[in-house]
């Protein structure tokens, strides 16, 4: 099977991913624009998956765990935003193209950020002290549909062994082969906040934890609070 990122990348990735940092944040802004009305953020469909790490090293996707985790993360996010005086509207997926295209471009940009901002070996010189990725102005349709100022995208992958979490090892997952999570039991993901007037990604956070069971609401709350570290006020 042809690997599409070379070994150098994997090694660089490994080094960063096993670092002790729980999160790493990039942001363009420290405060969210708002007028008198409460801030409205539309929560895009959560890309969350939980799996079980079997003795043979297989990641077996768990439907019930994933369903719980999605609900828990969503509820924890709604709570967290309320606590910040903002409203989180949950995007309702309907038929048709626009959301698919937004998803695709969002993922492409998210990956690009993870690869080129979080991996020193692959950094882009023109982005040295700059964080200016955008989804482009077409996302404004979301603003109109939901009367929202911002959109939040969340991506989380986690795996649990039946005997508890396994020590973290290389997570090639998001960065190289996408969803291939090598044995490790790391909770990983990212969140990005998009300004719906401009399409600019104003805040991007990578999540990486070795602890926290997303099958419970408490752990989801704590993961969410880690995920929202340095979220603009």
């Amino acid at each position: 099977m042809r690997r599409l990122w070379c070994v150098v990348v994997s090694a660089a990735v490994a080094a960063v991913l096993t670092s002790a940092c729980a999160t790493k944040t990039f942001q363009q802004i420290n405060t969210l624009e708002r007028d008198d009305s409460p801030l409205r953020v539309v929560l895009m469909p959560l890309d969350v998956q939980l799996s079980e790490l079997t003795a043979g090293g297989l990641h077996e996707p768990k439907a019930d765990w994933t369903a719980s985790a999605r609900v828990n993360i969503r509820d924890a996010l709604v709570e967290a935003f309320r606590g910040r005086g903002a409203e989180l509207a949950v995007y309702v997926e309907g038929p048709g193209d626009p959301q698919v295209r937004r998803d695709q471009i969002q993922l492409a940009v998210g990956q690009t950020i993870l690869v080129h901002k979080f991996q020193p070996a692959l950094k882009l010189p023109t982005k040295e002290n700059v964080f200016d990725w955008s989804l482009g102005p077409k996302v404004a349709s979301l603003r109109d549909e939901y009367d929202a100022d911002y959109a939040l995208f969340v991506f989380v992958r986690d795996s649990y062994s039946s005997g508890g979490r396994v020590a973290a090892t290389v997570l090639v997952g998001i960065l190289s082969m996408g969803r291939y999570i090598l044995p490790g039991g790391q909770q990983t993901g990212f969140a990005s906040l998009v300004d719906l007037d401009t399409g600019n990604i104003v805040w991007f956070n990578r999540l990486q934890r070795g602890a926290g069971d997303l099958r419970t609401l408490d752990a989801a709350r704590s993961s969410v609070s880690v995920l929202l570290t340095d979220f603009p006020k």
Partner: protein
Amino acid sequence: MRSPRFALAILIAAGVATASCATYEPSDQPYQKGAAFRDADIAPAVHPALDTDEAGLWMTMEEAEHDLKTAGNLVRDEALNAYVKGVTCKVAGPYCADIRVYILRVPDFNAMMAPNGALVVWTGLLLRTRNEAQLATILGHEIGHYIERHSVERWRDIRTKTDILMFFSIATSAAGVGYVGNLASIGVLASIYAYSRDNEREADDVGLKIMADAGYDPREAPKVWARLIREEEADEDKKSRIVFFATHPVPEERLDTLKAEAERLASTGFQGGIGVDAYDAAVLPLRAAFLRDELDLRRFSRTEALLNMLIEDGANVGELQFYRGELYRLRNGDGDLDRAMEAYREAENSDGPPPELFRSIALIHMKKGESVEAREAFSRYLALKPDAEDREMIRLMMEPAG
């Protein structure tokens, strides 16, 4: 959301037989309409409870299917989709509502059914089945695997034996691959996950029965295999097997059994249809694109055999002769320019060659330094296709040199 490739890996990965599987013995009961469905291992419209391992598999499949809906190489042509779905439904009987069909632009013969009812058909298959009954043969075979739960059994085997990454490797390289070059390696990997002989016999048997139930002539079934074998035998390079064969091994013995069983069914006075016209009406409008994909693979001896078989079948021969000419022109070996020109002349004298025929004839003339003839041929092309996107370049190329 998992990749559609993952799900389809499970499909391709029909797996190695476990020791505990009983040997499959086809019944020698007389043909009874509907019997295959009554004896199936899965009832229609069944959905596993959320906490079973099957549910986890189901979830993965659902998300993979979600991705499949937006795949870059999904064929969206409504007429073709309606047709293939229609044939699937005829064959699937009470399971029709459980099955969703996806056609992917991949130039090889393959069809796979996920344990959740997603059925994937590659366009290379549509190029190689000659009529509706032959298409129904393969669909019936896959539906047979589905209703006898062979895929789910495979997943259980794989869980205990195989590294998930290997699984994912197949997932990404399998089904719907845009990288045509991967077909060789897919075949190799897929063969690790081949259906067992018992599964195959069972699917053949069930497939024949449900095909007959749906009103198709079961004697068309062995012809599909025969055509594929003929194509493979013509392959001088032997770079890659037909992917379907990797997961569905076809020793001669199976072909004989299939023939015998088909004859037996037919001899019970059963009258079945073949359906050439409906098939052609659905597939011919898109055939040129599938032939172009085939040429991209650069498996020239094999494609040549396929084209010759299609020419024998006789539908839109002008188009087929044109592509035969294109094959020689692209191969560009000794004597190929002349072979190409000969094929193009055949195309000119047959039904339905595309306007591009004359552009290619012009290219051959140019290579031979025959500039007057080249210009004539280019003119004919432009006359047939005045809005050709390359008209500006061609007018430039028509100008006398110097």
